[in-house]
């Protein structure tokens, strides 16, 4: 018998020792997280609605929006990772896309319900995704699935001031800031990372950050950050 009782004992001891070695440093594989706050340091404008060539007068006025809800924070150098698709919505309301920015994972579907009493159209000619959902009236909704990571700019053919952005990620380490500008990226692999805060008109700002296993690293952004000379 080649596999003797002695060898079996030695193997058991080795396995036990190995398991002890790994269990003595559990944080070595434990992910960290990235938290922080985004603020915008300058006034931000949105395109005015105009109706110069319309027989009807608009029934709505554009309401101010929180720009912090349009900032996407993400790990720029994240490896491609299997992700779960989600469903998101961008409403067409008061001749505006609401919210104007959504961030989803690859394979996700974004619905575009029309809440306005007029026709809207949703289309994109972006390289990441080219589509045209046509015109649809109030109460109707059409959706589009996004199978490739990247930025998709969305427009309405009928109202030139309407624009939205769908950011599609092939990893789970992204977040949209809340009304206070706070964000939380959880489950980030430990190590040195490039963390990016993106805004459709203020551009992107990227800062390096070390994420320690099992700890929350903190980073704050003030947009826009002038380019360094």
């Amino acid at each position: 018998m080649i596999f003797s009782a002695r060898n079996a004992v030695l193997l058991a001891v080795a396995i036990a020792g190995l398991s002890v070695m790994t269990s003595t440093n559990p944080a070595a594989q434990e992910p960290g997280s990235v938290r922080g706050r985004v603020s915008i340091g300058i006034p931000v404008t949105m395109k005015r609605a105009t109706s110069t060539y319309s027989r009807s007068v608009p029934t709505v006025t554009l309401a101010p929006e929180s720009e912090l809800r349009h900032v996407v924070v993400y790990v720029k150098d994240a490896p491609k990772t299997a992700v779960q698709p989600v469903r998101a919505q961008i409403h067409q309301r008061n001749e505006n896309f609401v919210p104007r920015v959504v961030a989803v994972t690859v394979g996700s579907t974004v619905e575009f319900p029309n809440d306005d009493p007029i026709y809207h159209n949703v289309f994109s000619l972006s390289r990441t995704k080219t589509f045209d959902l046509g015109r649809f009236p109030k109460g109707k909704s059409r959706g589009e699935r996004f199978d490739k990571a990247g930025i998709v700019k969305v427009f309405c053919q009928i109202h030139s001031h309407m624009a939205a952005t769908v950011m599609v990620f092939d990893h789970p380490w992204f977040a949209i800031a809340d009304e206070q500008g706070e964000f939380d990226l959880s489950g980030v692999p430990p190590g040195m990372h490039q963390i990016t805060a993106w805004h459709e008109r203020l551009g992107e700002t990227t800062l390096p950050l070390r994420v320690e296993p099992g700890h929350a690293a903190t980073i704050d952004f003030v947009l826009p950050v002038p380019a360094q000379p």
Partner: protein
Amino acid sequence: MWNRLAPWTLVLLIAAPSAAQQATPSVLSIDSATSVDFTTDATNDTRATGVFLDSLIVGDFGHNIEAIVRPQVQRLANSGEWNRQIWVAEMRYERAGPVALRLEGGYIPSPIGLANLTLRPQANPTIALPAELFTSIPSLEIRGPRINLLSGIYPLGAQATVSSTHWDTRVAVIDTSPLRLRRVFGSTNPRFTNVTIGGGVTPFVGFRIGASLTHGGWMKAGESPAGTEDRDANLVTIEAELAFRHTSLGGEWVNDALDTSFGTRHASGWYLQGAQALAPRWFVAGRVERIDTTLPLPTAPEQDFRSGEATLGFRFTPEITLRGSYRTRQLFGRDTWDHLGAVSLVWYRRWM
């Protein structure tokens, strides 16, 4: 250094004072349209290049008051001449709401018809514009002034519009006959007081049918050997638009009733146009049109103009579109049809 700071300086200058964390509508709205059209007339073996540039600038004065200016430069395809115009220069008050109100005065967009609203190249589905706007019809008065069925005019005047979700109505007083061309920088603009009333109903989203009636002078005494007194005209338009999914249709019928030395003479015409998106980048469009009129003779012999155009378009980006079209037309008094091919590059950008 300036290159880096300039965009932010501009943002700061045009932004309304507000909290930095909220977006506010910009004080200025500017968009520009440019088209370059190459047309080949295979029948007459001629070629022409037309260039069109314009901008629509809207400034917000607060309290729902806006100033709107639309300067325009055009290189006329046939003559090669450059034509500078200001097609809109007006002040506007606009109150949104369930029953919305608009008051405007100055050089206003034409209060008549549908075709006048599609003059910008990015709004016109085909390359050629509706013939009723720029194709002169034979004069209905002996040696009288040439007229159009419905001119592309931007008259000096005032207009009030009241609208809701399902209806709209308007009244306008303008200083120009809608049958006569008017140029802002021209020195010989014929001036006539005309009154327009119009309205439309929108029974469901995407479908609107409207009409307008215009009454006023069209020819001054002395503009024709037979014209010993000022002449009036009545102009009726009926227009309809229907849009659904990837299709849009539009059409207009115009009837002119002119006082002439022969009594009341009529000219009428119509067009029907449509556009269909085939794919996100590809679309097809077409227009058929006809104008019927009579010659200034006691027997009123009839003449007509007919035209048809088919267009294929490709959108490189949301701002740049390439169009190619085939057009055939039968001019007034001709038995033969002309055949034309055209290519047009359109660039449209909403700056802010």
